[in-house]
């Protein structure tokens, strides 16, 4: 996929989006910088503007209407600006403005940005992956982004981002999922995760659950979602163990997995919990509701 021709439209789209929620002076500054960056391949111009964007835009979440969300999808499938803040939107506009005619130069300039970025800058760079040009050549960069322990940066690659599910091979994908579980990130924000579920991942996640139990710790409830398609007799025993947990989230997660699983014994087991089964069918218990509640308990603890 070459997004080279996509950038001007995405820039216009993002400028429209940002204009309604930023100061006019800041927008003028941004448009001037964007114009100057477009007109010159001088990297320093981009570097300085990229850093200084924080003097003009704050990190308040972007307000995106339903129509604007749809438009984002039309520009790029899975592109989710509703997960972005204003500052990173401004920074995305600046990097998209940098000339893309010389691929070597483009990578040299972007590599320097990635290598010298502060926490927020790295977040904006990685979250912009799906709208950058030369998509297939950004694979190693995306994987590198996941090696961080900075939650913010890890999230920028893994959450609300279509890039991993489209470009990662199974090994890289499974590493990302496992690390997201390990870091207790909200898995429901990982795009196309059900489609990328696989037997190897299920097996790794079960091992991980056993490790947690051995250490006397709870298992993240969203984990069972990725085991659900690959249930068997022994995994159903693990599910029963999770359902026995004192933790209501863990119980709900394990039973929602039973609901989703094609394994007949899982369905039979679920029917022993009619109240939860009813809530699942009524859409009151979803991976999103479980993920959100779980994240809240993390914040409170």
């Amino acid at each position, binding site marked *: 996929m070459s997004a080279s021709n996509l950038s001007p439209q995405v820039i216009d789209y993002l400028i429209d989006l940002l204009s309604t929620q930023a100061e006019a002076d800041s927008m003028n500054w941004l448009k001037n910088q964007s114009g100057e960056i477009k007109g010159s391949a001088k990297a320093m111009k981009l570097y300085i503007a990229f*850093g200084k964007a924080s003097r003009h835009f704050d990190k308040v979440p972007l307000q995106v209407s339903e129509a604007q969300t749809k438009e984002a999808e039309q520009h790029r499938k899975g592109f989710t600006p509703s997960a972005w803040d204003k500052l990173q939107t401004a920074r995305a506009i600046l990097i998209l403005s940098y000339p893309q005619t010389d691929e070597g130069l483009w990578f040299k300039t972007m590599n320097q940005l990635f290598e010298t970025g502060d*926490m927020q800058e790295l977040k904006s760079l990685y979250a912009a992956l799906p709208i950058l040009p030369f998509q297939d050549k950004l694979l190693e960069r995306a994987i590198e982004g996941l090696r961080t*322990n900075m939650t913010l940066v890890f999230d920028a690659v893994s959450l609300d981002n279509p890039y991993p599910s489209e470009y990662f091979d199974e090994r890289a994908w499974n590493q990302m999922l496992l690390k997201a579980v390990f870091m207790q990130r909200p898995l429901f924000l990982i795009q196309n995760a059900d489609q990328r579920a696989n037997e190897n991942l299920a097996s790794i996640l079960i091992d991980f659950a056993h490790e947690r139990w051995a250490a006397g710790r709870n298992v993240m409830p969203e984990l069972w979602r990725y085991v659900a398609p690959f249930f068997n007799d022994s995994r159903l025993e693990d599910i029963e163990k999770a359902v026995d947990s004192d933790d209501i989230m863990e119980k709900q997660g394990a039973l929602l997995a039973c609901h989703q699983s094609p394994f007949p014994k899982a369905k039979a087991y679920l029917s022993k919990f009619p109240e939860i089964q009813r809530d699942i069918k009524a859409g009151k218990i979803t991976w999103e509701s479980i993920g959100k509640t779980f994240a809240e308990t993390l914040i409170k603890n």
Partner: protein
Amino acid sequence: MEMYIDPHLHAVSRTTDDYEAMRKAGVVAIIEPAFWLGQPRTEVGSFKDYFSTLVGWERFRAKQFGIVHYCTIGLNSKEANNEALAEEVMELLPLYATKEGVVAIGEIGYDDQTAAEDKYYRLQLELAKEVELPVLIHTPHRDKKKGTTRSMDVSEEHGLPPQMVIVDHNNEETVKEVLDRGYWAAFTIYPHTKMGSDRMVEIVKKYGPERIIVDSAADWGISDPLAVPKTAALMRKNGIPEEHIRMTCYQNALTAYSQSGQMEESDWLAPEPVDQRLKHAGNSVLRGGQTPRVEGSSEAVEN
């Protein structure tokens, strides 16, 4: 609970135990000046990764313990003496100087007071003017008095207003001139050597709290990351007025460095929403009147 700022602390060489202890003692914000690492670097890439650590990982690490981390960017005087390397580092500086949370150019100044040190000190004073940031001056440990006077003379030669310059590592011999000339006078509290907390108490008694800043400069050497709260406690014990303690251990540092436009009290008192996607409507866990945020538990990463 009292709030303290430690405006000079080399966090890269401190442990998480230190961060926890600092937070417990009331430290809400720290400033980490770019400095050397105890031995000279030989490649420009080492500087790049170091600066990136200051604005990246170290910022994140501090946040896990509920402490807001700022830094200053600069080429220190010791390493300015490797001129070939210094040239390359100078090219890197503009890339970092304008980043968010970079509150000054520093620590810069003199060590041996060589010609090379003088050259890069002056170049960085010009950079500070260009990017409109305050300057943090490291005064030399040897020939300190003359070196301090010279640092201020040269700064004035380049037209920097004294209120934009923090002169650090003062002692009884330097403080009067620094204050008289209108500069911020910072004091590094070291156990055993240089300034001790008891001497600091006497200085505040003698000169009052105006433009005086207490810091720990805690690094990889013998030093104490709790020097600011401990000195505050000693001041309290010695009957120094509460307002003077607040100024020297919190407010003056904030006033001096907030001239960068990159540091304000709301950073720890009323932070911007962290992640709206994960919060239910009405959840105010991450906001709270005068309570500094501690978002550590949700951010803590197991290694």
